[in-house]
């Protein structure tokens, strides 16, 4: 009897293990072959010689990494970081009040307002970026409007510069900031505002001392969600930027499809991944320590 129970339990565990394996294997295998392995190949390519017609020669070298020390590439790297940072701050400054506004409305209003924020998020990125060409170009909406009001004699150069790229980035990633901010602000207990008020704090003090610290999580999450894709962005500078507003993504594309220097393109991609992973790892580290502290 005891033996039978034991075998029964054993088969049950085995079956459970089998179920787990069946559930996990397809996704894991797919991601291993078509995500992890390709990334390792990029790592491999980064230490190989450049091939004559694209591709690589199978010869070990570190020269591709040395090329990174060329100041030309620092400029691009610096610009990517700077534009992504600027975009993040701008999104925060616009997104926080908007998220706060939505979260402090009556419930029946909230969903409608949130939907208004989400709809652009669901529309094609390219299309949204393209819209800014119509607005910013020399024959575009702004220039036509200003010149018909006789405010300008010559059309302003609004397109193909960092201004246009920044506007495009903020426009593209604003919803990424608003959604996590709203998620934290929605859980914020607005009765705390009355409490602070009763204790004599004015709105500014209440905001700085109560609201801001309690919604820091949303701020950090939103900032990461904007900064990370913005750093690796390639379409926005490609469409709205010019030769002087190249970002890292453009450089990578150029190395793979234009200059045909795959190893150096691989080096640049690795740099990009590292830049993205650093803030993420810090975020998890801090979150982990907070969890332990509690």
């Amino acid at each position, binding site marked *: 009897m005891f033996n039978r129970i034991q075998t029964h339990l054993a088969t049950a565990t085995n079956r459970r293990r089998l179920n787990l394996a069946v559930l996990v294997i397809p996704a894991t295998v797919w991601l291993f072959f078509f995500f992890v392995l390709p990334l390792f190949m990029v790592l491999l390519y980064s230490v190989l010689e450049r091939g004559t017609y694209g591709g690589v020669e199978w010869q070990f070298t570190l020269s591709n990494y040395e090329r990174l020390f060329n100041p030309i590439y620092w400029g691009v790297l610096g610009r990517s970081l700077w534009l992504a940072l600027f975009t993040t701050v701008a999104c925060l400054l616009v997104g926080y009040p908007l998220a706060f506004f939505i979260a402090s409305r009556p419930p029946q209003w909230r969903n409608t307002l949130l939907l208004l924020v989400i709809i652009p998020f669901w529309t094609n990125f390219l299309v949204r970026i393209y819209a800014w060409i119509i607005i910013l170009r020399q024959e575009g909406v702004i220039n036509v409007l200003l010149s018909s009001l006789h405010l300008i004699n010559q059309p302003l150069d609004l397109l193909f510069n960092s201004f246009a790229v920044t506007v495009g980035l903020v426009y593209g990633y604003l919803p990424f900031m608003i959604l996590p901010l709203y998620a934290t602000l929605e859980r914020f207990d607005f009765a705390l505002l009355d409490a602070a008020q009763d204790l004599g704090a004015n709105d500014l003090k209440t905001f700085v001392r109560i609201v801001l610290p309690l919604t820091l999580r949303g701020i950090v999450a939103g900032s990461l969600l904007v900064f990370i894709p913005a750093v690796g962005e390639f379409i926005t500078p490609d469409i709205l930027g010019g030769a002087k507003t190249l970002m890292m993504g453009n450089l990578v*594309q150029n190395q793979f499809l234009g200059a045909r220097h795959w190893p150096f393109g691989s080096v640049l991609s690795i740099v990009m991944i590292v830049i993205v992973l650093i803030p993420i790892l810090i975020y998890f580290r801090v979150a982990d320590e907070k969890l332990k502290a509690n």
Partner: protein
Amino acid sequence: MRNALTLERRWDLAIRFLGRVGLWGITLAALLFLYLPIAILVIYSFNTSRLNAVWRGFTLDWYRSLFAGIGESGADVITGQIWDALFNSLWVGGIATVVATVFGTMVALALERFKFRQKTALEALLFLPIIIPDITMGISLLVFFSLVFQLIQTVTGVRLVLGLPTVIIGHIAFNISYVAVTVRSRIAELDPALEEAAQDLGANEWRTFYRVTLPLIFPGILSGALLAFTLSLDDFVITFFTAGVGSTTLPVFVYGMIKLSVTPAINAISTLMLMASFLIVLASLALQRRSLQL
């Protein structure tokens, strides 16, 4: 003393006033910022003027040129291509969504309903495709396919090239994660007691899943699939690097148009894409409503 108090009170009221005005002002400005470009895009798709933003009259020519190739030079080339591109997009989106939804749901079930040692590693594996810049994923797949195809050619002599299958493989790879995250949050909300009850009543694991778990998490699976389909239709970067010649999807086609020249025909196609995404959003809302009522 009394005077000082009122002064302080006035200061507080001024802050409150500024806060209110700022909150409303920024919210309105942000919503305007989100929607004005989209509105302008739609309006100018009906503008007679080809070259600039001055309104010259209403026309449907740009739409006609998309469908019938009337008017603009090169339009007849476009006509056939646009349908091919749309068809390709739907194919890629359809297949990638089905596969990614199945794999993603399976792995989500494993993560929520099983305990195993490598769970953190699996979570990290699923998290990476979401945070890694699109362009690194695109080029790593390009590197991977070119290497594998080279290998296959040397071994078997068969020459494979990039095309729709490689695009679909890439889309499945990034969609699995998004589906897994979406479905997982739904499973987490599910009361495990329901499944235990089913098992206590004599249903085996498969029957429990099929009759209890699946119907309950179905709305989550559906929104995961919808997200995957949208991301797939929206994707430009990964498709751009894995598509090769002759397997253009709609975003890649639009990108080509934007790069070639700015014509209101792009506005027309953008407007159609906008309408399609509005419809998807509305459909998903309707689905959510229904699932809430059920």
